[in-house]
């Protein structure tokens, strides 16, 4: 058993499973309230047109919410260094996937008709309704 030396105001149980952190109910409730408020903010900002910045703002708020869940609900704030590294490194590897995928897309010359967003859709790409309704 390791000795406990904490002064962050949270309760700690001297438990047989080892070093443990028991968070206060008040803290959990505060986190929940902030998460619900941020959900309202998410809906609110989606109504305002910031252009391409809308995506950035939405992802920023979602990241703050996710951080709250990870740090407090998932107790990562009080977890061991190795567990922090293991879980948080998944986001590092995820960012590699995003960076290389989007870098490829941003630098690719997309002039094939299939890739042109504003292209008029040819007849072949319109799904004919009669062919479907006959089957149902």
């Amino acid at each position: 058993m390791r000795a406990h030396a904490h002064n962050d105001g949270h309760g700690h149980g001297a438990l047989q499973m080892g070093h443990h952190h028991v968070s206060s109910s008040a803290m959990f409730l505060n986190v929940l309230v902030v998460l619900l408020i941020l959900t309202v903010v998410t809906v609110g900002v989606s109504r305002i047109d910031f252009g391409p910045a809308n995506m950035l703002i939405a992802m920023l708020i979602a990241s703050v919410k996710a951080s709250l869940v990870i740090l407090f609900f998932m107790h990562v704030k009080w977890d061991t260094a190795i567990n922090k590294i293991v879980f948080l490194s998944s986001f590092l590897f995820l960012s590699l996937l995003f960076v290389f995928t989007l870098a490829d897309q941003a630098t690719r010359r997309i002039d094939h008709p299939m890739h042109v967003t504003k292209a008029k859709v040819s007849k072949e790409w319109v799904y004919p309704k009669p062919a479907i309704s006959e089957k149902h």
Partner: protein
Amino acid sequence: MSQDGHHSVVIPAPGPEFVPHTVAHHFDTPVQEFQAAKLGFWLFLATEILLFGGLFAAYFYYHDLYPETFKVGGQQLDWKLGAINTSVLLLSSWTMAMGVRSAQTSQKRKTLMFCALTVVGAAIFMVIKFFEYKAKTEHGLFVFPHMFDGYQVDTATMTGSLPWFTDVHNVMVDATGAPLPHGHLFFAIYVTMTAIHGLHVIIGAGLILWVMKGVAKGRFHAGYYLPVDLVGLYWHLVDLIWIFLFPLLYLVP
């Protein structure tokens, strides 16, 4: 004495309503048992992040290629239902955190109550999801029985059809009424991401019910609450994924 001659460590029960926990014989100490399981579970959760991460990468890729298709696609979803489900999951994440806390402090009845509330949250979420899926199927935006039928080409007329995407109300069109490029793409991504997420909700609820059985038997208390803790982490991950899915699918930026 176990077979290999080691004494098993026993964590005593904190009260008469609990049972002692015997540390698995291949662990020297309860701390080692706890940390080994916890590390393994964080590794598993990291793979879950990467599983959903691939789908998010697909979302961002196609959102960038066909922003209007995604915008119109997102408008077909009911953001109010999405917001209700977001709140339900956040609340259930809180009840789960409180459930783990109750187990940590050997409060058997409170642990059971909070776990049960979490399962109720999971049920509400899935019921709402069911009605959302039902409406989308009726509108031909994704027709579940045909979900795995590929693109079908009629060689006589040289026209193609996608049996799972019939768009009966012609909603996937731009301002001029012309069909949007790859109108089915948004719904392919929507249904893949939410169905895999929904599967996690169902599995999570099942795991919580399983853990409740152990709680009822008094197996989890301040001395040993590992399974409650791990199932709690799984449930928070389900919430974590949805925090990103909600704005990306229902409020397409």
